[in-house]
């Protein structure tokens, strides 16, 4: 009877090691352990919690929430950034260890959303911190946030930080 061919059996039979680039292995490890900072500022954070919950289950991708910027790789800005919050947000971003990524979740974080004519709301979080993925929606569904995370993972997997920068 043929044993089912899978990667474990392959290791048993043929190889005890695989060859890869250090970068690829490190990137794979990093991409599958993106811990995100809880940055729930308004109603988008409800969808953020849903994404962490059992139905969307962002844990499948190795993402867990952290309540401290020191242990986070990713900041999901979920909600309206007021002018009073903006310097605090910038400080939390500065406290995160490099390399760090940002998802601007929802219309408010992208450009102010329905509060775009308000006197007290920041018109887009990219005015104070660099943003990697803009996620539209008001609020975006958990599936959309999961896709944004996958986009971040793709970005991490392409990074070549061990090589010298040619430019």
């Amino acid at each position, binding site marked *: 009877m043929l044993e089912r061919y899978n990667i474990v059996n392959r290791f048993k039979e043929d190889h005890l090691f695989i060859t890869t680039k250090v970068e690829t292995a490190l990137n794979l490890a990093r991409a599958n352990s993106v811990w995100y900072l809880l940055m729930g500022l308004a109603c988008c954070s409800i969808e953020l919690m849903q994404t962490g919950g059992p139905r969307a289950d962002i844990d499948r991708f190795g993402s867990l929430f952290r309540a401290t910027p020191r242990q986070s790789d990713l900041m999901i800005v979920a909600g309206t950034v007021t*002018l009073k919050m*903006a310097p605090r947000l910038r400080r939390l971003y500065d406290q995160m260890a490099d390399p760090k990524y940002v998802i601007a979740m929802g219309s408010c974080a*992208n*450009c102010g959303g329905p509060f*775009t004519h308000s*006197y*007290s709301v*920041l*018109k887009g979080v990219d005015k*104070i911190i660099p943003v990697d993925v803009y996620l539209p929606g008001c609020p975006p569904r958990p599936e959309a946030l999961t896709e944004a995370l996958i986009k971040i993972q793709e970005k991490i997997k392409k990074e070549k930080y061990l090589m010298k920068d040619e430019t």
Partner: protein
Amino acid sequence: MRHNLMETKKLIELLGEKLSSFIVKADKMPNNDLLILIKKESLLSVMDTLKNDLELKFNVLMNHLGVDYTESFAVIYNLYSFKLKKKVTVKAYMEHENPEVDSIESVFKGVNWFERETYDLLGIRFRGHSNLKRLLLPSDWEGHPLRKDYIYPEEYNGLILKREENCK
């Protein structure tokens, strides 16, 4: 007739009796509640009487608001009496230049944050308030945004507040 089923007309008479020297006008509103208009100088004594008088006992401060009428400001207090099962609205006008009114914190302690919010957004100052600082906006904010003549700032601490044209 039980006391708590007192009609609004009777309440107007009773209030006229208790606060005869303060009331400018007392009216029935369309929803059967009572609106009394007073001079802003007598606000503290009116509130004290409404709360502490044993026949009235309006001891619940339901709401406090400020209004900008362009040529004047007004403060409005909504009170409720469990004894009479009646609501009363107290309203006092003040001039638009340099609006100032007595704080009623010594009567209703819970009005503290309400008055701070009114000060923050409308710029009405409350004399005798224990901690009259901004409640919602940053402490270095200039101006009072809910005033009718407020001009929106173009930048704040180096952050540009103008809306981008291509942003959807």
